């Protein structure tokens, strides 16, 4: 016999997104059969009653009250779930209150607390980020600008000022860095080693650093420079500063450069800098062809190739051909839903290199824009601004992927679905379990679902646990994003 419990929170107004997130979290707790958090209007009370969720406690609610309603297999599970729901509802306030007591409110007061600090991480609305970054530079701090929506003019001015002051600006829109073994923002727990990474792409840095870690090597520093740093306008100012920094770092043996393709002028400038270096380099400008590089640098077409080149592991490019399942009937298209822009770009490279036409909302050179095609293989970057304005990034809230994923699973023309699962600090607590819930009992039916997990065993979400959850849900898990894309192509060819 199920047990139902309701709690009414009078006059508690929470953002709809928070309400849905708490609902989802509570509904997934052990023993919980159903859960809902709704405003206590008469119409909603009727819905809760029809869902067998309403008990007399909830009937006292008014339209301005919140009803937390849970049905579980027994009283113990229901009570535990209600305790968790209350904790989640109250947590933001409690956390804010606690953190307000110890966190400095200005850059100046932060420096008073720790005068030895040498880096400021700026994460404020874009309109204000440049001013805060300028203050940090003038206080002698290196700057990592997590914020986006900083104007190009501000970025150029900040980077020029930083260069004059012999400081480094990482960003804007820099989501990933690892400095001296310390991960910042979205990054993974990787061992310290002798490979440095300079990247204009966050998930690109994560994929390469994790593959390097899995190969037994480690990272000295991973420096994000922001997606526009290698543009003509910015001219690679931060990349050049980072190169100089890693050049003088005795713990860095080899350096990996990651970006989308820069202009010819910027490539020439970077190449000249590499030519003067005493170190060796791997250059991965995703989608770029025939890069003019000096003898101490090799070009890599994919992130996996970059990691292999830097750490010396042997690439398996077979795509798991022997394991690929032939597609049934009219199922001939691949749908890719990526939380990482660089991972979406890497998959496009793999498709294009095998002569397969592909479309994307963030097309690399040679791929089609979504608006240009009506059918075919599509690889979506769900972290792109068009999906994330005002919403959490899919690495934080994987629910952004739910609707397109469900749609693809029901589409009779889709043969393979391609997913990336990115874990690490800052990422969703259990993204594999979220995907598994959406897949439900999909199992080994068509379309085949293929994924890779970007992460390490030491990450909070634990790589092997994520792989195991996906595996149990019938997902074909490949060891890298490139391998997952190759597997999808192997299915088409089988």
């Amino acid at each position, binding site marked *: 016999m199920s047990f139902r419990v309701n709690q009414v929170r009078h*006059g508690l*107004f*929470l*953002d*709809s*997104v928070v*309400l*849905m997130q708490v*609902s989802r979290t509570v509904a997934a707790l052990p023993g919980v059969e159903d859960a*809902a958090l*709704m*405003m206590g*209007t*008469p*119409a*909603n009370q*009727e*819905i809760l009653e*029809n*869902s067998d969720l309403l008990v007399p406690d909830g009937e006292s609610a*008014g*339209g*301005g*009250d919140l009803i937390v309603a849970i049905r579980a297999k027994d009283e113990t599970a229901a009570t535990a779930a209600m305790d968790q729901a209350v904790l989640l509802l109250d947590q933001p306030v409690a956390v*804010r209150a606690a953190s*307000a007591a110890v966190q400095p409110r200005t850059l100046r007061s932060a420096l008073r607390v720790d005068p030895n600090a040498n880096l400021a991480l700026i994460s*404020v*609305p874009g*309109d*204000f980020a440049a001013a805060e970054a300028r203050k940090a530079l003038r206080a002698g701090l290196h700057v990592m600008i997590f914020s986006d929506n900083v104007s190009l003019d501000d970025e150029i001015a900040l980077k020029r000022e930083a260069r004059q002051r012999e400081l480094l600006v990482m960003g804007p829109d820099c989501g990933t860095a690892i400095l001296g073994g310390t991960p910042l923002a979205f990054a993974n727990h990787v061992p310290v080693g002798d490979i440095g990474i300079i990247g204009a792409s966050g998930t690109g840095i994560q994929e390469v650093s994790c593959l390097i870690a899995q190969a037994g090597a480690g990272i000295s520093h991973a420096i994000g420079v922001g997606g526009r740093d290698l543009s003509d306008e910015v001219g690679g100012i931060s990349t050049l500063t980072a190169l100089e920094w890693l050049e003088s770092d005795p713990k860095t043996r080899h350096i990996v450069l990651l970006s989308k393709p820069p202009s010819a002028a910027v490539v020439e400038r970077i190449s000249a800098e590499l030519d003067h270096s005493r170190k060796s380099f791997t250059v991965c400008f995703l989608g770029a062809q025939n890069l003019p590089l000096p003898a101490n640098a090799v070009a890599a077409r994919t992130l996996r190739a970059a990691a292999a080149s830097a750490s010396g592991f042997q690439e398996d490019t077979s795509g798991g051909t022997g394991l690929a399942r032939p597609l049934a009937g009219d199922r001939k298209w691949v749908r890719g839903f990526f939380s990482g822009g660089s991972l979406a770009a890497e998959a496009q490279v793999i498709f294009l290199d095998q002569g397969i036409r592909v479309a994307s909302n963030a097309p690399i050179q040679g791929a089609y824009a979504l608006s240009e095609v009506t059918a075919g293989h599509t690889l979506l970057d769900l972290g792109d601004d*068009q*999906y994330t*304005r*005002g*919403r959490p990034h899919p690495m934080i809230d994987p629910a952004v992927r739910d*609707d397109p994923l*469900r*749609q693809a699973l*029901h589409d009779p023309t889709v043969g393979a679905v391609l997913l990336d699962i990115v874990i690490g600090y800052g990422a969703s607590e259990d993204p594999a379990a979220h995907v598994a819930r959406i897949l439900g009992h999909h199992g080994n039916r068509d379309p085949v679902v293929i994924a890779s997990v970007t992460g390490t065993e030491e990450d909070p979400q634990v790589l092997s646990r994520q792989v195991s959850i996906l595996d149990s849900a019938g997902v074909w898990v490949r060891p890298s994003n490139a391998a997952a894309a190759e597997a999808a192509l192997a299915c088409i060819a089988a």
Partner: protein
Amino acid sequence: MASPQVVTGAGSNRRTDAAFVRARNGRGFSSAQAVQTLSAVSIGAQAIRAIGASSRGRVAAVFNRSLYLEFDGGWCCLVGTELGASPVNICVLLPGRMDIVTRNAAVDTIDQGFVIGSRLHVVTASARVWTAPIVEWSEETLIRGLAALDPLCLDHAPNAGLSRIVWPRSLADPASFELCVAMPVVASLAGWLQRVFERGAPELPPGSITKLVGLGPGLTPSGDDFLVGMLVVLSLAGRFDLVAAVDQVIRPTLEEGTGPISRLHLAAALDGESSERLHAMVNAVLAGDHDVLASRLVLISQVGHCSGWDTLAGAVMVLRVLARTHRSVMAAGRDAG
């Protein structure tokens, strides 16, 4: 479009800014705790009414980027500019988060704005009064706009909320309870609109419309959002008689039927206005401006969990009847000719 206006707080019981801060400090507020001054860049009609008729209020709800304020004269919402203007919003350039103030903190109106707790001083003196923009449109542009919008929405409308009534997905997908409740209501509303548009004479909407009030998930329930979209388009179409008819049927149910925040948005919609994002979207459909639909749909989809979609669904239901009615009238005219 209204020209920029200056909003000032009138009333003899108002104190000056400096006098207010002195008074607060004199009552024991720490002068070391800085009062952050925010300049409002726009303010909507409902918000003007709320603060204009009041000397005092409280913070009713706190979010990262917005605060709902309850005054004697009504409710309004203080938001960062990135959330956009609306009849209930006071938009400010916000350097940080709003949740530095606490729920139930006192709000005192002063000469050129108001002060929230001891933390925020909002200056409304140079705020532009926001009014919903109106576009030129014809039946031809409307039909073009709807034809371009529907494929986008079929692909992206969420399962939650009510938008799947207007852009249905596979019948195999399970329908939520709110969807089951709302589907026959929306069908009868569409039938009612068809009749009144064709005949021209007003009649009351079906009583089942009250089933939408307070229905569904979210801070503003989906059914309320749907009604907001519907009311806005009826106003844009100049059918204020039908807005009044809806008002007559739903108003008695609002006090008990939904929460104060949703009532605030419904009241604004009964006056013909909603969020800047909804108006921009509806205007693009009306004008057949298909190039901007995708980007505006992205903004709509960012409103709440599914609130943006629900308001758009209500709006599109009316727009479709408008387009259909016109076509049938035209066809009848051709046949007669």
